């Protein structure tokens, strides 16, 4: 053991162990999430869901993986050979990489060395996460183009447009968080959410509410309370970036067969599939870190390093559940509606929210005024985003032109 440490250095060894453990854990979580999605949606739809392999069908994901692995690896004659082969990896790898900056738990002390439960605590963590999210789309676009087929091409084009519309809103929605936390590092942002909201004096002097405000001394100090408009924008844009319903236009099965991965089968299809679920898990993990206090949570005395990990997993799965729930409920958005929502609602709302956050966090503004302004403005912005499309009252389709052909 000491020989290995001497050879490559303790830091590198710890890093290597972290990478391997997180990689395996992420794979297992993704497998668990595919199973969870099928079970949860089945339950919502009055079905049973997978129940053949293993207890409660738990091994279904593994069975699927084995099946896909041994399937014929088919490549259409019209496909661009190398791009076609690279695209699935290009879609999957960035999803894995993004988890590197997410703090998964507290730290442990091994010997005299402090080991954090994060692979790389870089000081531009948020930017890194955004960059990886954008890189993943290359896989989709390349797959759509390289398949040499029309449906994947349409899926790839849709994906490009979707990325441009939502990446900006996604980035802008994280600016207020960076402003209030004063850092772009996810570890710092999580650390800033430790403890409880504390002593609130907002309702002092009002009889009943004065008593009720004491409850804030046990409410965790998460950013979701003050930054929920940012969370709403982040969540919508994030789902759009992961190509999940209701933003699953690039793979809309009833329109484009399977969109960009129509021509893929076997293990390459599995890579797309896996990449999507990893992306969902990572997005949820980042959402938890940014808005829900990350790994913070009460623990029992024993095994102090374990509880943060469990809290983090539990919170992440709750967000994943939300995403699954959306898929079971909502129809798919139309292409032009998606653009409209991204450009005309989410981006302006995110910009406005940055201004609001900047204004009320100025030095010298009392906490009570800050709270009041936050609540009122957040409500107004959300109402504006959610008020729907005024154009719906008129003809909104391209048919409104007069070129209708003869009856």
């Amino acid at each position, binding site marked *: 053991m000491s020989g290995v440490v001497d050879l490559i250095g303790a830091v590198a060894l710890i890093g290597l162990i972290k990478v391997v453990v997180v990689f395996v854990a992420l794979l297992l979580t993704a497998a668990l999430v595919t199973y969870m999605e099928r079970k949860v949606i089945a339950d919502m739809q*009055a079905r049973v869901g997978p129940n053949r392999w293993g207890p409660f069908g738990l091994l279904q994901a593994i069975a699927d993986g084995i099946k896909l692995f041994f399937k014929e690896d088919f490549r259409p004659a019209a496909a661009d050979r190398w791009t076609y082969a690279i695209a699935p990896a290009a879609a999957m790898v960035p999803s894995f990489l993004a988890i590197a900056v997410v703090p998964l738990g507290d730290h442990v002390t091994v010997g005299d060395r402090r080991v954090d439960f994060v692979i790389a605590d870089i000081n531009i963590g948020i930017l890194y996460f955004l960059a990886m999210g954008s890189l993943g789309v290359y896989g989709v676009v390349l797959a759509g183009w390289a398949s040499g087929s029309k449906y994947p091409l349409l899926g790839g084009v849709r994906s490009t447009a979707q990325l441009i519309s939502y990446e900006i809103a996604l980035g802008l929605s994280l600016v207020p968080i960076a402003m209030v936390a004063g850092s772009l590092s996810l570890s710092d942002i999580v650390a800033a959410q430790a403890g409880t909201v504390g002593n609130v004096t907002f309702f002092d002097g009002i009889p009943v509410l004065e008593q009720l405000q004491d409850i804030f001394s046990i409410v965790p100090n998460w950013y979701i309370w003050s930054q929920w408009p940012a969370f709403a924008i982040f969540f919508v844009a994030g789902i759009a970036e992961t190509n999940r319903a209701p933003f699953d236009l690039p793979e809309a099965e009833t329109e484009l067969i399977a969109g960009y991965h129509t021509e893929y089968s076997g293990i390459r299809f599995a890579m797309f599939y896996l990449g999507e679920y990893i992306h969902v898990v990572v997005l949820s993990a980042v959402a938890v870190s940014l808005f829900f206090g990350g790994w913070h949570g009460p623990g029992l005395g024993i095994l102090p390093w374990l509880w943060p990990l469990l809290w983090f997993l539990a919170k992440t799965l709750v967000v994943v559940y939300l995403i699954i729930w959306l898929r079971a409920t909502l129809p798919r958005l139309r292409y032009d509606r998606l653009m409209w929502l991204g450009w005309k609602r989410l981006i302006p709302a995110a910009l406005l929210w940055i201004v609001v956050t900047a204004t009320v966090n100025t030095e010298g503004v009392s906490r009570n005024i800050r709270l009041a302004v936050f609540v009122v403005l957040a409500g107004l912005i959300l109402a504006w985003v959610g008020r729907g499309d005024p154009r719906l009252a008129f003809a909104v*389709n391209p048919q409104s032109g007069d070129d209708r052909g003869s009856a």
Partner: protein
Amino acid sequence: MATTEDRVVDASEVAAEVSRGNLLTEEMVLNVGPQHPATHGVFRLLATLDGEVLVNADPVIGYMHRGYEKLVEARDYRQITNLVSRMDWLSGINNELPLALALETLMEIEVPARAQYMRVAMCEMNRILNHLMFFASFGAELGAITPTFYAFREREDIQMAMEMTTGGRMHFGFFRPGGLKEDAPKGFFQQALKGVRQVIERLPDYENLLIGNEIFKQRTVNVGILPQDVAYSYGVSGPIARGSDISFDVRKDEPYSSYDHFDFNVHSAPNGDCFDRFWVLLHEVVESAKIVEQAIEGMPDGPIMGKVPRVVQAPKGEVYVRTENPLGELGMYLVSDGDRRPYRLKIRTPSYSNVSALPYVLKNTYVSDMIAILGSFFFVLGDIDR
């Protein structure tokens, strides 16, 4: 048919077009189908796309042509009942009705009241089955996967009732010239009432789930408008015509098989878009459920078969009978030369006329709208091609 020809585009030509403000783009011909998830069958659509906009759509049908009109000329009347039930496989028993009515008219057979009420009840149950199926598929096509399974759950109880009477779940073969094959078995009425009451009770929830959804409205309102005059000119009928403000229903306007004994409404909607067609379809489910309730509660006693000669042999003559199929007006023109088999049976199926309006509606829509429009035209391929 559109063909893609290799066109060499000169770079200077492109530059000139771009400088004139016209971005030179190429149209793409997309072959939707014959196997495509949104066409529920072998329906093919040659779509000319400019980006995501459908410049032109050319439906190609005939992949399922089975030559029923010729087949029936070689079979006697008892066998034809089972043939025609396979035309529109979602509403088998509704297809059998006009044939029975045509024969009864030619042979001057009086159908007993009980048989008529049973026919109405079963036809309306079949209509509910058909409409719920389209409710399911329309939601699924728009990406809402959950309503599909709810619709199938509701279908099951009614399907059971049909099964315990006829023995079939899709192709029933139950109507005979002069009446029915058998009387209703024990427990049929309770099962049928249970099924339709469940539908009446639960449908508002499903309506909320889908119709109340903002995204659903965005996908369907003002999409795929079929104006009233166009609907008339193409001979569109059924829920699609009623969605275009044509309040015509054969059950109401030319009652057959004692439909005039029942109290029900004909819903129509003014705008002719996908939303209206779907809205009409959903509201017809409730009306059908009401008819079933009335028919079962007022079910008269008596025989289920009129006085029919041992050999079903229509006298020389011709007759045209039309009924309201779930998807529209189903007409049968029966010409008999006095034999045991028809000399000619011309069938006017609703889906065939309805899809003929598709090129008009599909012109200049988005690809996603194409799916909504195809879904809201409620066609069955077997009914188009027969």
